[in-house]
């Protein structure tokens, strides 16, 4: 592991962005997911959905063009792409729960090998913020989780059973960490890709759940 360097936030965002297909409707959570917007393949028409009722968010405007009535769910100023539409909050979540999101990219505290994930409350806190995560995760066709593979103490965030409070059951389809890309399959976690300098065994050692190594395991294009 001597020349192994964990991916930084932008590299994780770039990798997950490569999953998005032309014409998809996508919802991005806060943090790393939001960065994915900077790595959409050239020429792709990816439509971004924001919980507060924007379908077709465009990039951040110049300072002088910021409008407080045109901000993302993350409270950042945005613009509109041509053909954007507004809906109210109930219909906005109809888009999500109703299955029209091709993908959601979300952060997580933990993901289990049946696709459960936790992202809304720390176990030692009384309350957390659910926001839109439960609705989005239950409805999106694909749920991509981006997170560091381990927490600050080196504890694996990929687990057999969640110890953090559940957000949504059996919904995560793929996990993008700073050392690996892992699919959630009926057989459990499958290691698809490793970060440059990492071996499958490095990833297995850092993962607190059984990890099936794909026959075609490859290195993440950094």
């Amino acid at each position, binding site marked *: 592991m001597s020349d192994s360097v964990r991916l930084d936030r932008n590299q994780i965002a770039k990798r997950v962005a490569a999953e998005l297909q032309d014409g998809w409707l996508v919802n991005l959570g806060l943090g790393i997911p939001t960065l994915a917007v900077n790595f959409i393949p050239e020429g792709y028409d990816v439509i971004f*959905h924001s919980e507060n009722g924007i379908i077709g968010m465009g990039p951040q405007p110049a300072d002088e063009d910021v409008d407080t009535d045109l901000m993302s769910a993350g409270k950042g100023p945005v613009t509109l792409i041509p053909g954007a539409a507004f809906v109210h909050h109930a219909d906005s979540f109809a888009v999500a729960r109703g299955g029209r999101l091709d993908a959601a990219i979300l952060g997580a505290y933990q993901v289990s090998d049946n696709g459960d994930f936790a992202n809304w409350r720390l176990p030692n806190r009384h309350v957390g913020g659910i926001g839109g995560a439960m609705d989005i995760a239950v409805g999106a066709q694909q749920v991509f989780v981006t997170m560091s593979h381990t927490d600050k103490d080196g504890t694996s965030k990929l687990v057999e059973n969640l110890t953090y409070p559940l957000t949504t059951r059996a919904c995560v389809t793929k996990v993008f960490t700073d050392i690996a890309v892992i699919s959630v399959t009926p057989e459990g976690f499958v290691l698809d890709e490793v970060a440059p300098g990492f071996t499958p065994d490095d990833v297995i050692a850092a993962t607190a759940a059984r990890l099936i190594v794909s026959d075609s395991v490859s290195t993440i294009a950094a």
Partner: protein
Amino acid sequence: MKQKKVETIEDALDRISDGDTVLVGGFGFSGIPEKLIDGVCERGLRDLTIVNNSSGAQKLGVAKLLHNGCVGKVICSFPWGRESKIFTDLYEAGKVDLEIVPQGILAERMRAAGAGLGGILSPSGVGTEIAEGKSTHEIDGVEYLIEAALPGDIALVKATKVDPRGNLIYRLASQNMNPVMAMAAKYTIVEADEEVALGDLDPEHIMTAGVFVDRYYVTGRYKPDGWDGAWS
């Protein structure tokens, strides 16, 4: 950008199969996707479950589908109109099934499907025949019927304007159940009077967001079938 526009009715309809549940917009003479309905008849599809407010009138709308033998079941609020003799005949001959739903609950069950809900708690029809066989649930001492979401395999929707993303504008009162049907179907097919360029629709005026539309066909504005009054 996803290519949603199709040039022929055949292409518009190529996802429909025998036995599908098809949500068909329209109320009275307004908002009926007539060209798509004609296309379904020409395809000779069979055993469709058709959802609409009524069973059609004369040989129009749903009645046309019934006349052409496409329909196995009708889900509607008003099957028994004076002008829907074809439904009466087929129903009494045991050739078509019927599920009757209060009009507002029909719309709400489709909206629930579109919103990814399992269903709704309905106050309408409690204690009546339509409650038979349905579960009930009490909230604050009031009894409600549990009405399941009503999704479609296909929606046939009529709009007046469409843009390349499939964003829709409906004219006057022609929207009726079209917007909830567009939400409720796995695959939504639109017939529009007119196509406008990308960016021509004000995002605040869009009535159905293009994410609910899978395909559209442009007809030009035409006089509704069976309407013999003034027309402009």
